[in-house]
């Protein structure tokens, strides 16, 4: 069964100043265990699509299912974990307590929560900050806490909205490698919004390229870089080729110069 199935999904935001067509005619299937990146210019509806899948908003047209259920049923069954564009940590909770929040909300025992939180914090490199409060962390560190929180319940679908946006380059690459490993191990499907072409290419099996006004899927670029993606891959010719392919899809024209955004 596919993790996400969208058929002709559209979303219109109506306001007094007029209607905004955020999404139109989105057809997308994300297989179970598949890693899909969403890329596109600002305002093309990436976050909106993620929010529809997460049942934080309802589509105006079309049909959307998550693991064969309606998004609402999937949300209530806790089928997904989510990391937003903003970290959204609770300021009165310590880092550990923030990571434990989803487990706490679903009645997981104290000892198990503490163990899981320790595991996740070392994964995101924040073991030394377990007892700190969010305001004592930098933006990037807060973002990493939010990522740890989204992984807390080992969801079979991960929804991530530019989770690495606030990270420095080194941490970012380390988190990317970790994310690939986690997803391979847990078999989770991922819908990953990003603005970075190399990031999309490195992480995903398919890159979905979107265009704005109205938000549509303009191209889907398959990336087949194998299951084991180590650091060496970032300098591999196949990696550059895929980056170029996504660039061309994004710009809508073949890019002649071999200039590659190597962020």
């Amino acid at each position, binding site marked *: 069964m596919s993790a996400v199935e969208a058929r002709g999904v559209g979303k219109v935001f109506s306001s007094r100043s007029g209607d905004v067509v955020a999404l139109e005619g989105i057809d997308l299937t994300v297989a179970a265990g598949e890693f899909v990146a969403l890329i596109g210019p600002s305002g093309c509806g990436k976050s909106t699509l993620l929010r529809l899948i*997460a*049942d*934080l908003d309802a589509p105006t047209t079309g049909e959307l299912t998550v693991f064969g259920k309606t998004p609402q049923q999937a*949300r*209530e*069954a*806790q089928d*997904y974990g*989510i990391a*937003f564009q*903003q*970290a*959204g940590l*609770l*300021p*009165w909770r310590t880092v550990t307590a923030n990571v434990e*929040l*989803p487990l*706490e*909300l*679903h009645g997981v025992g104290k000892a198990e929560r503490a163990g899981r939180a320790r595991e996740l914090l070392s994964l995101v490199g924040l073991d030394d900050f377990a007892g700190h*409060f969010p*305001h*004592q962390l930098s933006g990037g560190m807060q973002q990493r806490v939010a990522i740890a929180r989204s992984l807390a319940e080992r969801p079979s679908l991960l929804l991530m909205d530019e989770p690495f946006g606030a990270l420095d380059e080194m941490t970012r690459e380390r988190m990317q490698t970790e994310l690939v490993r986690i997803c391979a191990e847990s078999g989770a499907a991922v819908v990953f919004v990003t603005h970075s072409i190399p990031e999309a290419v490195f992480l995903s099996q398919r890159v979905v390229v979107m265009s704005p006004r109205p938000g549509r899927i303009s191209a889907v670029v398959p990336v087949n870089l194998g299951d084991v993606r180590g650091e060496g891959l970032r300098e591999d010719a196949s990696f550059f080729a895929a980056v170029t392919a996504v660039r061309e899809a994004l710009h809508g024209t073949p890019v002649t110069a071999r200039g590659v955004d190597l962020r």
Partner: protein
Amino acid sequence: MTDLATTLAPERTAPVPVRPRERSTVGRRILVGVLAVLLLAALWELVKVVVPDGGGHLGEASVLPRTDDLAMPHVWDIVDRVLQPETSATGSPTVLSAMLSACWFTLRVALAGWLVGSIGGLLLAALMQRWQLAESALVPWVVLSQTVPLIALAPLVVGWGGRIHVGTFEWQRWMSVALIASYLAFFPVTIGALRGFQSPPAAQVELFRAQAASWNRTMLSLRLPASVPYLLPALRLGAATAVVGAIVAEVSTGTKGGIGRLIISYAQSASGDPAKPWAAIAAAALLGLVAAGLVSLLGLGLGRYRYAEVR
């Protein structure tokens, strides 16, 4: 209501950590309270010096009060009067002990009213948070409720209370006073709690929604902790207004034993013994400060929730 709402609204833009300063705050607050009282006393004496005894006149109209020792006794005379016996009758207690026991009575009644009003305010705010419709339907009534003059309300409450007999329970006069005090206290608490409950940003609310957390759970784990910086000032304000409410209610229901009643009975001897009513008035004002101070002790253990409170 908007005025009150803005005074109750902490600065949301910069959540500054306040934990390290936490311990010194109570001491500082008490110091500020004492300084304010001293300043008031100094002002009082200053007015006595500057304004002529007969008061200030503009043509025929009197614009400033008389400041002779009968109208405005010296601060030290008032303090001295407090330490003297209440009446010339033998065995009469000092004014101080009479006022202390009266204040103790009023404080207990006011705190009972504050407790009822605060719980009622919290529940009402939760109700309005839960149902948007309830909010738009109730807010005008909540505001309107504060425009009803207490004096008009007091005899009604006493009248209703007098008819309550359930088994061995009988409605006491002090309960009417507490109920009127709660009527004043519930307003700031309702408004403060509602603002607090609505304060979590969308990202946090949606996080709870994404976790399929129930409304109760979201209330307990998100909205209630987020409302602490709004609630504490509201509860403090509520305590002060509860004291005012209790005093006014004592007077207008003719309840004996409290400081409100004492003010009235001392005022009757004002012409011969002017320091006495002023002593009682000062005691009533101090009582409000004490009540607010007691309530701010609540905030002591809540440091981590007060990341955004204005102080």
